[in-house]
Every structure is written in C-alpha cells, then in structure tokens.
C-alpha cells in the first residue's frame, strides 16, 4: 500500500463533491508519472492529504457562495433576505459572519496545519538524520548528480536506496533551476551563490520522474530526470559499478570511436574517467551506457537514438548547448560503438 492511497480513500467516501474531482483527475491522470498525488514518501503524502482536505473545504465554500447567488436569482423580484426580510443589520451580520468569522477560523486552522506543523516536514532535513548525501547540480539543460563528493559523477538519473533519508544538496552551474520529483517531495530552487537542501526519500522501489520547474531558457521543457529507488544491495552494486573508471574499448570500431572522441570536440565538453577527456560543460559519460535515457530524459538510451542525438542534437533539443559537429555517419557509428561499451 502506498502512502497516497489509505487516508484519501476514507476521505473520498465522506466527501461526494471531492469524489467528482478525484474521478476526473483519476480519468485524465492515467499514466501520469509526475502527479503530486501518487506519492512514495511521508512529506509528499502529507502534502497530498493536505490538498484533499483543502479541496474539500474549498468545495464547501464555493458551493455555499454559489448557492447564495442562486437564491438571489430565484428571489430576484423580492427585496430582503429569505425568511428575515429587509433587515439591514442581518445583511451586515451576514457579511461579518461569512467575510470575517468563518474565514478567520478556517484560516487559523489551515495556518496551524500547513504553516506551523507540516512546514517542518518539508523543511531541509537535519543532516544528522540523513545517512547519505547527493549533490545535484542544475545545468542548462541537464542534471549533474554527484556521490561522495564527486567520486561518482553521473547525469539525469539519481539512484537512491529505498527507505533511506537522502540529503540532496541542490546548486546550479548557470541559471536558476528547480529540482522537483513530485512523488517524493516538494521542489527546491537551485540558485547561483546559494546552497539549498531537500530531503529525497522513497518508501518503495521504483522509477520516479522529475522535471525542472523554474523556467531556465529555451530547453526548459526538456530538462527531466529519473529517480531510481533501489533495494540497498542493488544500489550498492550500481554505485560500485559507477566508481570504476571507464573500460578500454574492445572492438576495433569502438577503438576508432574513442580516437574520434578524444581528438574531435567531444572531449572538450565531456569527461570520461580514465581517459584524457575531462570537459565539464556536458554530462560525464564514464558510464553513459548504463543509463536508461539521454539528453535529460528526453530520449531513450538505445544505439539508434544515441546516434541520432550525436548526429543532430539540435533537431532533438533546438538551442541546446550540444553543437552539431557535422560528423560523418561512419564517425557517428564509431563513437556510438565506443559509448555503448561504457557500461
């Protein structure tokens, strides 16, 4: 049972109007990978629960106010209030009750729940409670992900052990980005000169999609990421694999690809640990073949899509910083052969 399902289900039975909205969200939300309502952590779950309660209260207020307008329409030829007639003091009392009294009580309650209690849940985690720290650095238009102070440097995919409180240190290399994985927690902005932190926690293994939510330039729309919550043993195996330097190319084509990578412009932007390539403009490619997606979760990591990306990155992400190098198709296939070996 996920965090999201237990309590809201009880709530839905109580609140028929909310059910309508719920159903409509459910219908249209099929396959939604970024919903804030499908949650796998306590903070995200609590926020979703808060939303359902706020929605319920909002539906009541809205229905009440519209009902008054409908009564006004039905009694359009009759002056005064229903039952009480033309009583100015009661009309004024109505304004005070609905405009001051009820809102005041409701707002104090909302303030207490959300801005006194829950806000502590979504605040940056106490470092003593987080056994693990990951640096996530926003770039135009990809995510750099670093473990152990940079011993592992990967991109666009964050692997975390399940049921583990992870402290994400969110910074930026250029403009403001915002790190957001809705199923797992609130978002946090990445701002030049500021080091922000946010808790990343997943209660169940799985893939959770995230996306940059602060407009960061022409390819803001294509700046997504995947969080992989793994069982601890799997996670350790993955991390150990990532710590190794890149293997030497095996096939002749891969060797030619490596040669091209180092002598052409690739190496000036990308790092491959264990080789002379040490650029820092683009993602670290030491284990690029182990990733499931490319170009900030824009395309799948298959040889065909990788080749298409290298051949004409501007067709996939117009305005991206990865240039069209005008490589021959032989050169592209050799580079792909090399990169495919970087597991």
């Amino acid at each position, binding site marked *: 049972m996920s965090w999201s399902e237990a309590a809201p289900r009880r709530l839905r039975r109580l609140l028929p109007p909310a059910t309508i909205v719920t159903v409509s969200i459910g219908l249209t939300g099929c396959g939604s*990978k970024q919903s804030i309502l499908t949650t796998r952590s306590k903070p995200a779950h609590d926020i979703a629960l808060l939303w359902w309660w706020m929605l319920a209260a909002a539906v009541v207020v809205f229905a009440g106010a519209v009902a008054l307008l409908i009564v006004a329409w039905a009694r359009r030829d009759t002056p005064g209030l229903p039952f009480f007639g033309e009583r100015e003091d009661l009309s004024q009392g109505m304004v005070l009750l609905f405009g001051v009294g009820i809102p005041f009580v409701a707002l104090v309650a909302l303030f207490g729940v959300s801005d006194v209690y829950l*806000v502590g849940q979504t605040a940056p985690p106490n470092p003593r409670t987080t056994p693990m720290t990951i640096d996530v650095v926003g770039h135009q238009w990809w995510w750099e992900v670093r473990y152990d102070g940079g011993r592992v440097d990967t991109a666009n995919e964050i692997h975390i052990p399940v049921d583990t409180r992870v402290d994400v240190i969110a910074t930026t290399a250029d403009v403001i980005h915002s790190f957001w994985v809705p199923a797992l927690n609130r978002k946090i902005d990445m701002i*030049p000169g500021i080091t922000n932190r946010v808790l990343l926690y997943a209660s169940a293994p799985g893939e959770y999609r995230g996306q940059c939510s*602060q407009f960061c330039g022409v390819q803001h729309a294509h700046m997504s990421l995947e969080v992989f919550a793994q069982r601890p043993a799997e996670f350790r195996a993955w991390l150990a694999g990532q710590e190794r330097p890149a293997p030497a190319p095996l096939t002749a084509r891969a060797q030619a690809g490596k040669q091209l990578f180092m002598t052409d412009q690739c190496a000036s932007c990308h790092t491959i640990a264990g080789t002379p390539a040490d650029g820092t403009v683009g993602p670290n490619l030491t284990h690029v073949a182990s990733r499931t997606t490319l170009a900030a979760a824009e395309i799948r990591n298959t040889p065909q899509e990788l080749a298409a990306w290298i051949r004409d990155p501007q067709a996939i992400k117009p305005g991206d910083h990865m240039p069209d190098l005008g490589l021959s198709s032989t050169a592209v296939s050799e580079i792909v052969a090399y990169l495919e070996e970087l597991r």
Partner: protein
Amino acid sequence: MATMVSPQAQRYVDELDEIWVERSGLLGWLTTTNHKRIGIMYFFTALAFFGAGGVEALLIRTQLIGPNGHLLSPQAYDEVFTMHGITMIFLFVIPMTTGAFGNYLVPLMIGARDMAFPRLNALSYWIYLGSGLFMYVALVQGHAPNAGWFDYVPLASKQFDPGNNIDFYGYGLIFNGISSTIASINFIVTIFKLRAPGMSINRMPLFCFAFLAASFALLFALPSLSVAALFLELDRQLGFHFYDAAYGGNALLWQNLFWIFGHPEVYIIILPAFGIATSIIPTFVHRRMVFFPLVALSEILVAFLGFGVWVHHMFTVGFATLTTVYFAAASLIIVIPSAIQLFAWIATILTGTPDFQTPLLFIVGFIVYFIIGGLSGITVAAIPFDQQVHDSYYIVAHFHFVIFGAAVFPILGGMYFWFPKVTGRVYHELTGKISFWLTFAGTFITFFPMHIVGILGMPRRNYTYPPGMGWTLLNFIESIGAYILAAGLVLIVANLAVSYVRGPRRDPPYEGDTLEWATTSPPPPYNFPVIPIVSSPYPMWDKDDRERDRQRLDRGEGLLNLGHQTPATTAQDAELDEILTMPPHSAWPPVTALTLAGIFAMLVMGHYWIAVGFLALGGLTLLGWHQHEASAAG
C-alpha cells in the same frame, strides 16, 4: 440630461460650449487634455494590446493543443509567452482600468470638469503608448523579451541572454513606469482635491475609493520595479554586478525587488475591478451597497496589506522557514478584507431586486471566478502545498482566475455598463448575454483544467510536453476553451462596434447612482454645466439635490464660466476651497513623450550620446511646457 435643459438654461450651456470648444480632427486628439478623450485613447490602445496579448495566448494554446507541438520554435514560444504576460499586465489591464475607466469616469463621478493635471494626464497616455510600441517593436523585429514577465536573473543577464531582447524589457518597464507614476499622482490629487462640494470622503463612490487605493499602491510599488530594472540594465550594459553572485551580487535581489512591486501589482490590477463591481451592482439590484464603510475600508486594507506578502512568490528559494511562515500568515490575513467585499457584493445582490442584464451577469461571473481564484490562492498560502505546485500549471490556473476571471470580467461588464454613457447609445442586450455565456464558459474550460494538469506535475513555460504524462487531454480541452473564449471576446467587441453605429439612443439608459449619470451621454467637454452639490454616496438617487442643480443652472448660478474652471474642495469634507483654471489643449505632452521615446530607443541601440541629446531636448521641452504655463497664467 440634455433633454431637460430649459430655454433659459440653454444660453448658459451655449456659453460653456464655446469656452470649452475642442480642436477638431487629428490635431484635436493629439493635443487634447480632455480626460474623456484621453480615456478613449487609452481604451482603444489598451484594447489593441489586449488583442495582441490575446493572439499570443492563442498561439500558446495552439502550440500546446497536443504533445510535441511545433507551431512555434522554442525561441519564438519564449518570446510569445513573455510578451503575453508583459502585454496583459502592463499594456492592457492597468492602462484599461486606471487609464481608460479611471480617466473617463473618476472626474465624472466626483463632479469635476477634468483631472487635476490635464496635461500630465495627456503625458501619461503618450508615454504609455510609446512604451507599448517600444516593446512591440522588439517583437516585430524578432527579439522580444524572452525570460518571462518576471524575468529572473541570471537567465536575463548578458551572459545567458546576450541579444537586446531583455533590454527592451528593462528600458520598456522603466519607460512605462513613468506613465503609471504620473497617472497615479494625478488620480490621488484629483480624488482628494476635485470632489464636488458636499462629497466628503465618506460620500465618495466606492469606485473612487478603489482607484484611490490602487493609485497609492502603484505609487509606492513602482519604484521597486524601476530600481530593479535600472540595476538590470546597469548589470547588462555597464558590467555592474548587482545580481551576479560570482561577483558578490545576489540573484535573489531581483526576485525580492520584483515581487515587492509584483504582488501589490496584483491588487493594483484587481482593485479597480472591485470598483467597477461596486458601481454596477447597486444600479442593477436597485439598492445601496451593504456595509458601505466596511467595503471602503477593505479596499484600502487590501492595497496596504498587499505590500507585506511578496515572499509567497518565493517559497521555494530556500528562505528560512520562519521567514516564509510570516509571509504565509500575511497572505492568509489578506483573505479577510477580500472576503468582506465578496460577501458584501453577494449580500447586496441577495437583498436587492437584481435585474440580470449583461453588465450584472459579468459581475456575477466575476464573483464566481474570484471565489475560485481566491480559494486556490488560499491553498498556495499553505507553504508545503505551494512548494509542490509552485511554477506548475496550478499557479497558471490560479492567477488566470484572479486576473482574467476577477479583473477582466468587471472590465468587460464595465465596457457594457458605460457604453451608453460614452456613446449615447445602448448595446444589443441578447447579443450581450450570449457574449457573456461564451466568455464565461470559455474562461472556465480554458483555465479550470490547468489546476488538474498542474497537480499532475506539468511545469509552466514549457514550449511542449511529451505524450503519456496524463496531460494531453486536459491541454486539448484548455485549447478548445481558449478558442471559445476568444469568440466570446470578439462578440463583445462586435456588439459594441455595431451598437455604436446602429444602437438605439437612450439617455439615461438606467438609474445609475453616481454622478456620471447626472450629465448628458456623451458628456460635454466641461462635464457639468453647474457642479452638482452632493449630500450622500448615491447622489443620483437624491432626486431633490439634482432638481436643485437644475434650478441653479436655470438661474445661471455657479457656472464657473471664466475659462476652463473647476472647483477645488478640501480633501476631507469637500468644502469649496478655490476655483481652479485648467490648461487648454497642449502639444507639449506628446512632444515630451516623443523625446522620452527617443532616449529609450537610443539607449536600447547603445547610442548613448544621442540619448543624451534627446535628454537635453527633453529638458528644453519641459522648459517650453512651463513657458506656456507662465503666459497662460499671466
């Protein structure tokens, strides 16, 4: 009411007509200082920008009608959504409310013959026109501002946006801000000093309270924006580092300065709309506003509290929790004066005998959408929830219900309501009702699904989105809604345009409560042959008072016919203070605006010395302006 002028009064009216005669033709419009003509120019200019902003909105919605849309390139999309925001906020809503409605109506409602500073009034219009064209030149040339209407640095810095796109934004907003500053000073002085004798501050129409509050808010909020834009241009042009963290600057400084302006701005947008609502409701429900003093107080409170909530735009930047909690509390408190007004309108409609004609329908639509926008606004004052949906389509839904639903609906209702005042003709009622329902449905279909798509995780400002995210159907519905909405808006304009030519003449069209209905439709250049003497907030419902005004006109009493004269009264009790002589037409305002346009055009092109030349020219212009004043006084 022209028809009721007696033969003996006609002589005095003719005399005033001669004193206030206006230049005809194009030159007349270029040099006018008449608040009604300036209001009409504001109206058509703002309407044109509304059309441009609307086309931009349709481009956005067409791009997003399905996944992986490619109607616009990413660069073009960024320019289009940025210009949509800039246009709707700075070039449509504010100029439409304060510029068009305020200019035309405030002097009429307070029983004055013009604004306090008629030439400044013309200047603020010409500067507004210049600044709008300035920013649209950039769009036509293909390098319009492209970092969003709140233009966060460092994305908007020279390093990441090397073209002059952002310079059109920075200079354009400074340019535009001059216009708004001048206009708000003019409104404040006009409302305080030019009210008809007897219209003490507690008898002032709620419309004027709203404009007074909005003008004060604008006056205090704008410096923050102008300073922010100035720092931006110093950073971009001269290598200052106000916002550059690498050199000891601070990227959040921009956000703070921008939103210190930006949130009061929301209330500056919506307060005049509240004012329009409080004009339309009493007329069509045939009763006085419930709890008038509390509503007036709430209008002022909203404008005041609006200055203390700006950090709720910045709940995800990583401020200390305590800081954000304060701003969340302030944001919740502002709900109270808003709710007071809301339920005062509802109570007035409920206890009156409402006649649901087109203007009142738009106000009911406004109330419904203001509730939705207000409720979604309350949800984002819950910090943790905001931290989830911030910069998602949920926010886009929220502020469109507030700005389109709650600010534009009263503008549309107001267009119908005062159309007979401005033209002397009435609009087509059935077409009006159809246009309301189209607009109402279109607004809901366009903006309501955005709440859901935001909750499903769609960030705003994406030029496209992938399939399979659960966003496709909702985006499709939104786009269809946008076309329906556009059809409704076109129908409104068409209704008014056709009615202008063919509509039946009826004057007065309804039993309005405020003084604009005390004169003919359209009003003469001097508004009132004799200045009304007021004894309640609903002067048109005081039949005896108006009868006395007519008798004074018959006797030729208090005509103020020694030039462009209008009475000035004391700020609080509106006792007669002095008789002012207003300046006639003048060419200096458009000339001054032209030199300002020259300065900003040269700045954006980097010709600093020529800009200095235009600055000197501007100085000479001001000298000429005051030269003229001296001779007029002499």
